[in-house]
């Protein structure tokens, strides 16, 4: 308990630093899954640790101790956690709870809004493609929250005119990759993870970039031509410069590497390779964190049991 309770905190900190290097090293299709999964575990470990630390202080409140039936003096004597640390952890836990609740409400409201929109689209023609008759150059995937339909590809007429038929197949394959991969849920998970663990502040933007890259790679595979995929993206980008889309971003996801230019450059390079060793190291780190967190939890339980028995 004395040391291993802090392992998840250290891991959460390290994870915050490692987000971008990991995103660079892993192929995007694996990368966003790994980042979200590891981020989620590290956030859970961080919240768990805060809870354990806070509980050592909360358990000493006389009312709580009477209700729980343990001895406060025994607890104080054997408590390995200094009071300031415990109080700080309790405060941090309160802040994290508020942040996660706020983020959840905001995200779920957005999900509900697009769900309503997707449902209103469902009967119209029944096709996946929805064309907006305007000259701006825009395209996006609107996920459906309905089992029968994956979602819609919403495109402006301006975008369709900017691309040739082969390039349009890239565009459609890219948006389908978002819908098939349920990418919106992954980004949502990344956003909530970042709300729970402030060290992971870079996670959402990084995952966002990886999702675009993953969809690019899927599209390139679908049309079996990386250069064609790069061309479609460049053509759409150039056309978008002439007919800029309305500024419509709820949250600015600033990631300097997330520009369209960077995605094109990546497509013009050979396909990314997977690093087995890196994944093995990640799995071991995650295992260490989980074991430490469980061990710290057991130690705290033992401490309280001791305090209960000594009381009687």
């Amino acid at each position, binding site marked *: 308990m004395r040391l291993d309770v802090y392992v998840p905190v250290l891991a959460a900190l390290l994870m915050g630093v490692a987000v971008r290097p990991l995103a660079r090293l892993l192929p995007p299709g694996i990368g966003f899954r790994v980042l979200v999964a590891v981020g989620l575990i590290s956030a859970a470990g961080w919240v768990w640790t805060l809870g354990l630390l806070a509980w050592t202080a909360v358990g000493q409140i006389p009312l709580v101790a009477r209700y729980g039936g343990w001895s406060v003096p025994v607890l104080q004597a054997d408590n390995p956690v200094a009071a300031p640390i415990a109080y700080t952890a309790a405060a941090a836990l309160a802040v994290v709870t508020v942040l996660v609740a706020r983020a959840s409400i905001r995200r779920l409201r957005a999900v509900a809004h697009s769900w309503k929109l997707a449902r209103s689209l469902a009967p119209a*023609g029944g096709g996946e493609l929805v064309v907006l008759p305007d000259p701006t150059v825009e395209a996006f995937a609107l996920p459906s929250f309905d089992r029968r339909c994956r979602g819609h590809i919403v*495109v402006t007429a301006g975008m369709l*005119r900017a691309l040739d038929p082969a390039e349009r197949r890239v565009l459609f394959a890219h948006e389908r990759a978002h819908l098939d991969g349920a990418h919106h849920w992954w980004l949502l998970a990344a956003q909530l993870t970042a709300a729970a663990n402030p060290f992971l502040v870079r996670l959402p933007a990084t995952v966002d970039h990886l*999702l*675009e890259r993953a969809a690019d790679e899927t599209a390139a595979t679908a049309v079996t031509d990386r250069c064609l995929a790069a*061309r479609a993206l460049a*053509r759409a980008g150039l056309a978008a410069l002439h007919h800029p889309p309305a500024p419509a971003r709820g949250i600015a996801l600033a990631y300097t590497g997330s*520009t369209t230019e960077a995605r094109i450059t990546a497509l013009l390079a050979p396909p990314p390779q997977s690093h087995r060793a890196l994944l093995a190291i990640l799995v071991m780190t995650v295992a260490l964190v989980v074991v430490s967190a469980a061990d710290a939890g057991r130690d705290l339980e033992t401490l309280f049991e001791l305090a209960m028995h000594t009381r009687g």
Partner: protein
Amino acid sequence: MGASEGSDTMGTRTDRRQSGELESEVLAVLWAADEPLVAAQVQQALGPRLAYNTVQTILTRLHAKGAVSREAAGRAHAYRPVLDDNGLTARQMRALLDRGTDRAAVLRRFVDELAGPDGDVLAELLAQAHRSTPNPPPAAVSSAPSGLES
């Protein structure tokens, strides 16, 4: 028996999905064109990947769904895309985009942030992509963007 039924449903699902994807491609050709197109023109735009009959079938299906309207053009039909619900969908989408909804829920844009505001980098990358493609696409389609500006 049960197994073969299972594979059958899988097959139809894949087929339905594939035909849905082809419908999108055909519809996109009609939207990108300035005038109604006959099936032969649509097939020509899409290239030799699709047979004429396939294109014709897709157009008929799109017409049955009300996604395209058709008019007589000689002995054939010329097709043009239809705005569903008098543009209601379009207005809703526009409102969504202008309102700025959370990206996680909806907006996964194909083209997002651009680094160079003047497009120099993009133009250079486009040239690179062309250089590394063995056979560039027909020139007819690359003139399409200029038609948009008029």
